[in-house]
């Protein structure tokens, strides 16, 4: 097996988070069903008349519900069977169960059952069972069923009496008090049955209600339910392919919000309760990346910050071989088309939406290591080991590998197909029988803190299966959660939790009015170190229903404080409650909540209208030109410059423009407004993509001249628009173009990095200019140029004379001159993509490579450098912005990323192939078979099908000679780093807050923003122009890091007002002002 995961990160986090008790790994035992009296298996019969082709949710499976139906304080189990009778098992204690389906009368009568919820709907003190039904395509045998508990071990089906006999293709239903009137309302999640291929995605069908189906919010009015969806603002259209409904109070206002996960092309919905019986759907405002084929989801507070996060399942395989045989991804064009048509940023992977607590979410599944768990149905976030952190269980598996690429492209055709499709129509049974069937291990992950999860096969939960619904509950009342899983065509799983290392507190919540089980209550348990939040909603995960009694792991704490916020907002509080016991809390004894107004003093206040500038980007798709690249490099343009251009004592600003959009020079007037100047000159240069600027006095006349780097990849490699521009200042801010051909006249370069210093100590400013990328040849090595000034602003390329290190050094992104070794001259630091952070020491005007002594790997995908004295100890420290850790790419010294660059197919168009090193020591390509063949046609001969490619590593794809002829670059560090200068070219790495690693960093600014006498940081980034296969990098809203005075940084929540959506490309501050440049957006200005 080839592993793609991020073990290194996990290990380092384990070390860091040792304050949590990590000695107790959870361990679950699978009970022998026969011994415990359970004989349930969700058996499917696929026929020519009814099968996955006729009913696309054929393999979605059934749910499982845990609830006490006879008030003996033991959880009973209700399993849903799709096609045959559902089953109810009475818990007799000590893991002994007795099937009582028939006597209880809860088997169900409908054609196809899906989800189940156990809750006391009629508030008579006895739990009822609500079963969702679907599947019956032609008939109407799919009304939902409500089994009302008669209190004597029998039930009576009364759905129509309650008006809950919904006729849609229901998946699940969740009961909660949306209007806080004291009774339980319901959200019924309905799938749609219109054929996927028949939808026109340009037509917005979202607001059009489906007459029969469609999601419904139904209000309980004295025991009868009424559809209030329209008035409440709930979508219920034919494109709502709902597979998960998750209720949670996302904004902590004690009103229930709703997250809906939708399958297929429709995006998910996030509804925020407006407290007036209506909802506002805000997903596109608050979330960026979302799952494409969203299935079950769960919401819980993962990091104990008091806000519930959301985890959503999708279909991305975690095993390399399956990734290479069952997976395809949308291409850029299709993604972009869907984006434009309102389907938002959808990607094939699980999503972990971290709730930032300020009406925004950051998607961290890749960072957390939980993005891939194959065809997943349900997720449950619950504390497996009672350490106070909620862990993650994912039930997965699809009985037929419907997306097996060989099946789609090769097997389902030819002779087989001919026998299957003939004059009599399609023989579906045969068509389905030839689809491969492979069990997949369920996935269990241990939460190790700070949004890091570790796969936990030792948990005993990772069994190969076709699993769908699952539910957790304390079946034996021993203070931990056991787990029940419903499987297709195989016996269900009942797992007993054996943990006993950690303490717990269990609560029984006694509600009031018509919500006796206090659905929607929130429990906060404080251990002194952590406050653990638990929300009580029985419907959870996929089509399932959990133990309603909060069982909260508290680690080694001996006593805890408990606060309960009841559904009506009233509060109960208990202090110093001893652990390992069950506490009953009554809503009737609660007190009214105090109104606490949070008042926060933000450091950063946004100033509107200070400078009106929109950073426009030309539309250019790099992926059209190069088939094997994952990121575009055509919107990296940034590089604002600030300085007094006209000698009036006011700072002026230069903003480089993308191709087709002129660079701007804004002169600040003495009343603080900005005037757009030099328009004619700059308009003449607008065909160049200016990606960076520098202000420097090149001709020694005392004013600032302007150097503009022309880069990007939008031009031909021979285009004159790639020449950089030098603009000479007349002293009053009027610029004229020098006829200098820069950086070198003969060869055209796409440049980006610019730095200036007096390299040779002759009193004038010399320059370094770095080449970013060879156009159309990603991976080819680029060069840096040293331009020596004659004092009059005439530059000569003296690279050869000054340094032997700059030719073919790599894809340079940034460079800075700084006296790193404190010897009075300017040394050079450069960085780049697939490059080291390189140090060149100035030795008498020559730049010599200096191997620094450091404790951290430094070959990265660097975007930006900032050199500054962080500790104020008199030497310069280095901050380097990298790709970050929230990525499907991962790299370490042991398991690096490599870029093999060569013209492998000898067609004069070289290709760069990115690989990862697996633990077996081999390098595997990220490219899927068809993507690699798209670039190198001849490989199709060697790999005629997907199966043949699934284990191919680079050494088997190419010959020894081919690989020897390839240029190999390495990346072994994707974290942004802070290198503290210890003197003598020795640097030690200092940990940055983990939030910085949530995304790519493109901009760093440093000032004493909070005016406490030390240097603080502003950082920002994100990258949206990424192939859908890898997914965009969007989890950052900018970072405000405060310095504790010793160089240790803390990420301020809410950024203390610094909160920027989008791709930050530059941050510049002066006086009391911060300007932030966001790609494709207006310039944002803050005062501090």
């Amino acid at each position: 097996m080839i592993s793609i995961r991020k073990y290194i990160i996990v290990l380092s986090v384990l070390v860091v988070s040792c304050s949590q008790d990590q000695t107790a790994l959870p361990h679950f035992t699978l009970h022998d069903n026969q011994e415990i009296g359970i004989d349930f298996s969700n058996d499917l019969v696929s026929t020519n008349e009814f099968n996955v082709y006729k009913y696309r949710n054929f393999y979605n499976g059934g749910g499982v519900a845990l609830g006490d139906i006879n008030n003996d304080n033991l959880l009973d189990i209700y399993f849903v069977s799709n096609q045959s009778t559902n089953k109810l098992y009475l818990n007799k204690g000590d893991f002994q169960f007795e099937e009582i389906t028939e006597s209880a009368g809860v088997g169900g009568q409908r054609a196809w059952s899906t989800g189940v919820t156990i809750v006391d709907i009629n508030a008579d003190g006895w739990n009822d069972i609500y079963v969702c039904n679907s599947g019956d395509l032609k008939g109407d045998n799919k009304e939902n069923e409500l089994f009302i508990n008669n209190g004597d071990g029998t039930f009576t089906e009364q759905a129509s009496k309650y008006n809950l006999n919904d006729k849609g293709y229901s998946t699940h239903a969740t009961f909660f008090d949306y209007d806080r009137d004291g009774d339980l309302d319901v959200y019924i999640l309905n799938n749609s049955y219109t054929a996927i291929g028949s939808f026109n995605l340009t037509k917005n069908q979202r607001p059009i209600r489906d007459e029969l189906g469609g999601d419904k919010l139904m209000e309980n009015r004295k025991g009868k339910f009424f559809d209030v969806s329209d008035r409440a603002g709930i979508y219920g259209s034919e494109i709502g392919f709902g597979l998960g409904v998750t209720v949670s109070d996302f904004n902590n206002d004690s009103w229930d919000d709703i997250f809906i996960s939708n399958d297929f092309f429709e995006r998910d919905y996030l509804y925020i309760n407006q407290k007036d019986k209506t909802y506002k759907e805000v997903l596109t405002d608050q979330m960026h990346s979302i799952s494409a084929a969203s299935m079950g989801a769960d919401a819980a507070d993962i990091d104990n910050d008091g806000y519930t996060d959301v985890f959503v399942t999708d279909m991305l395989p975690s095993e390399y071989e399956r990734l290479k045989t069952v997976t395809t991804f949308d291409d850029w064009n299709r993604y972009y088309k869907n984006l434009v048509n309102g389907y938002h940023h959808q990607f094939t992977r699980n999503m972990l939406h971290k709730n930032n607590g300020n009406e925004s979410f950051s998607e961290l599944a890749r960072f957390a290591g939980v993005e891939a768990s194959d065809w997943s149905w349900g997720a449950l976030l619950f504390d497996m080991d009672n350490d106070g952190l909620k862990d993650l269980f994912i039930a997965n598996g699809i009985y037929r590998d419907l997306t097996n690429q060989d099946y789609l492209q090769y097997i389902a055709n030819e002779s087989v197909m001919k026998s299957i499709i003939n004059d009599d129509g399609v023989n579906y049974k045969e068509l389905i029988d030839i689809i491969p069937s492979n069990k997949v291990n369920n996935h269990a992950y241990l939460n190790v803190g700070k949004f890091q999860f570790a796969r936990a096969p030792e948990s005993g939960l990772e069994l190969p299966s076709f699993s769908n619904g699952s539910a957790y509950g304390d079946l034996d009342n021993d203070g931990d959660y056991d787990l029940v899983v419903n499987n297709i065509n195989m016996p269900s799983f009942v797992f007993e939790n054996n943990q006993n290392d950690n303490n717990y507190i269990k609560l029984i919540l006694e509600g009031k009015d018509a919500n006796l089980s206090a659905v929607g209550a929130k429990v906060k348990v404080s251990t002194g170190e952590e406050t653990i939040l638990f929300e009580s909603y029985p419907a959870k995960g996929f089509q399932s229903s959990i133990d309603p009694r909060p069982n909260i792991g508290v680690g080694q704490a001996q006593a805890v404080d408990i606060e309960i916020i009841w559904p009506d907002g009233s509060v109960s509080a208990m202090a110093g409650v001893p652990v390992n016991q069950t506490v009953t809390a009554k809503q009737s004894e609660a007190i009214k909540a105090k109104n606490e107004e949070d008042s926060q003093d933000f450091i950063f206040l946004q100033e509107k209208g200070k400078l009106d500038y929109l950073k426009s980007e030309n539309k250019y798709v790099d992926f059209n030109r190069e088939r094997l690249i994952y990121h575009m490099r055509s919107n990296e343009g940034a590089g604002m410059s600030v300085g007094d251009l006209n000698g009036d004592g006011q700072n002026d600003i230069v903003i480089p423009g993308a191709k087709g959009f002129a660079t701007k020079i804004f002169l600040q007037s003495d009343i603080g407004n900005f005037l757009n100047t030099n328009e004619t000159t700059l308009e003449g240069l607008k065909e160049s993509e200016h990606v960076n600027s520098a202000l420097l006095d090149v001709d020694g006349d005392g004013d600032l001249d302007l150097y503009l780097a022309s880069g990007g990849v939008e031009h031909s490699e021979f285009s004159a628009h790639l020449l950089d521009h030098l603009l000479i200042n007349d002293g009053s801010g009027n610029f004229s173009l020098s006829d200098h051909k820069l950086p070198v006249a003969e060869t055209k370069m796409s440049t980006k990095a610019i730095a200036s210093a007096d390299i040779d100590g002759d009193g004038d400013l010399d320059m370094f200019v770095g080449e970013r990328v060879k156009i159309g040849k990603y991976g080819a090595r680029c060069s840096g140029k040293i331009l020596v000034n004659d004092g009059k602003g005439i530059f000569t390329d003296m690279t050869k004379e000054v340094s032997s290190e700059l030719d073919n050094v790599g894809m340079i992104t940034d460079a800075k001159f700084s006296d790193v070794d404190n010897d009075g001259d300017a040394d050079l630091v450069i960085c780049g993509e697939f490059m080291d952070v390189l140090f060149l020491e100035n030795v008498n005007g020559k730049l010599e490579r200096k191997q620094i002594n450091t404790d951290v790997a430094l070959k990265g995908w660097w975007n930006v450098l900032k050199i500054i004295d962080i500790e104020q100890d008199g030497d310069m420290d280095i901050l380097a912005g990298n790709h970050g850790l929230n990525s499907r790419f991962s790299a370490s010294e042991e398991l690096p990323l490599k870029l093999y660059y060569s013209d492998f197919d000898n067609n004069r168009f070289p290709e760069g192939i990115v690989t990862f090193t697996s633990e077996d020591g081999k390098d595997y390509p990220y490219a899927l078979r068809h993507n690699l063949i798209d670039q190198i046609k001849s490989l199709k001969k060697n790999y005629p099908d997907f199966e043949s490619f699934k284990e191919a590593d680079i050494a088997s794809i190419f010959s020894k000679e081919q690989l020897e002829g390839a240029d190999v670059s390495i990346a072994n560090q994707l974290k942004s780093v802070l290198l503290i200068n210890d003197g003598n070219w020795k640097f030690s790495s200092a940990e940055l807050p983990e939030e910085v690693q949530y995304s790519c960093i493109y901009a760093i600014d440093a000032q004493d923003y909070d005016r406490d006498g030390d240097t603080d940081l502003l950082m920002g980034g994100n990258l949206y122009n990424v192939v859908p296969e890898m997914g965009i990098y969007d989890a950052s809203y900018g970072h405000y890091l405060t310095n504790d005075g010793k160089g240790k940084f803390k990420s301020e929540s809410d950024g203390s007002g610094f909160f920027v959506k989008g791709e930050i490309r530059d941050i510049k501050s002066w006086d009391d002002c911060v300007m932030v440049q966001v790609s494709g957006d207006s310039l944002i200005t803050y005062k501090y």
Partner: protein
Amino acid sequence: MKRIASLLLIGLITIVGCKEESISIVECEKITSDASYFHNSLKKLTDVIVHDIFSPPVASRVYLYPCIAAYEVIASKDDNYISLAGQIKELEKIPMPKDTALVSYNLASSLAFIEVGQALIFSEDKIIDYKNELLSKMDSMGISRKVIRASHDYAIQVKEHILEWAGKDNYNETRSYPKFALSDDPSRWKPTPPSYLEGIEPHWREIRTMVIDSAQQFVPPPPPEYSLKKGADFYNLVMEVYNVVRDQTKEQKTIASFWDCNPFVMNQTGHIMYATKKITPGGHWMGITSIASKKSNADLAESIHNATWVAIGLFDGFISCWDEKYRSSLTRPETVINEHIDPDWIPTLQTPPFPEHTSGHSVISTASAVILTHLLGDKFSFTDDVEVEYGLGTRSFSSFREASEEAAISRLYGGIHYMPAIKDGVIQGEKVGNYIIEKIRTKK
């Protein structure tokens, strides 16, 4: 797998080759002049093209070079035929065999076809199995092992010659040229449902032509200007497609399906998908050519001759057509109708993944029909059963042109082309076909 098969074969030949008596070279030529050897090989090549999912223009290239290899072997021996060397771009005479006396040219031509075909397709195993069967069959019929080996050696010699020439047609280079870039221009082609595949072969015009001067020799008139104003030409043409599909007769639907020739149709319901694959338009006409050769009792040499003519017409036809497709880059009816007229409209045929103007089927069907008429006459009736194995019926035609006219209009019935693409495509195909007829001589 491959290795085992060839080892077996060597073993087989060695054993059988020990036989005392073997058939003379003259006998061998006679046996292998049976045209079925070629038709079967062509059919096998078509099957693999279908399996490997080649797009229509690329498929025309896979047909071309094997045909030329086979034909050049025939023409090098048979005085009735004139070599194409010097007549088509940059082709030089094939080398002579090392041992002339032992080579069966008929067998060598079949093997040259197979060898070149094997080099151009991806699923080699299928072709290798076929080749080994053929060799064993020759052997089992008593043909001398030396003759088989010499003929096969010669076929490989010819293959190398042909592939070296083929390697200079810019095919490899164009694999890495930029993809078709989309824009907001409403007239510009966009990917279409359900698979939204990228535009295929945007640089096919840069492939070396065989006979026509360049891709731009027969530039058709541009399509009418994009306008959705009521009464505008373009609007009327869009509505014509819309109305034809709406009011479709059963016969029109049958015709559309019969000439669909889409190598990859994705059927999609939910997460479930399966592809149905068919021959390309070029494959259909190669099939018709075999039908016609059989009907006219053509021997192996004449069958290869006929197929080679048509393959050249297809090849140049596609280059000419693709040149215009990516010049005008016109949007498909499905896109326009969905966006502006009826969001739920679905054409009868799945829209293929490339721009609209001109219709490839119209161009290449007409070019093929012009060539076949030139070879076999204008009153040549035949029953086209090429599509039977793809679940479609047979259709009878009284002439090649009747068939090509039907293929052309089928694109309107299918809802995938406006009328000018068909009319102008037919004219473009005529020009390509007639020019080839004018330029090439194969008989003395």
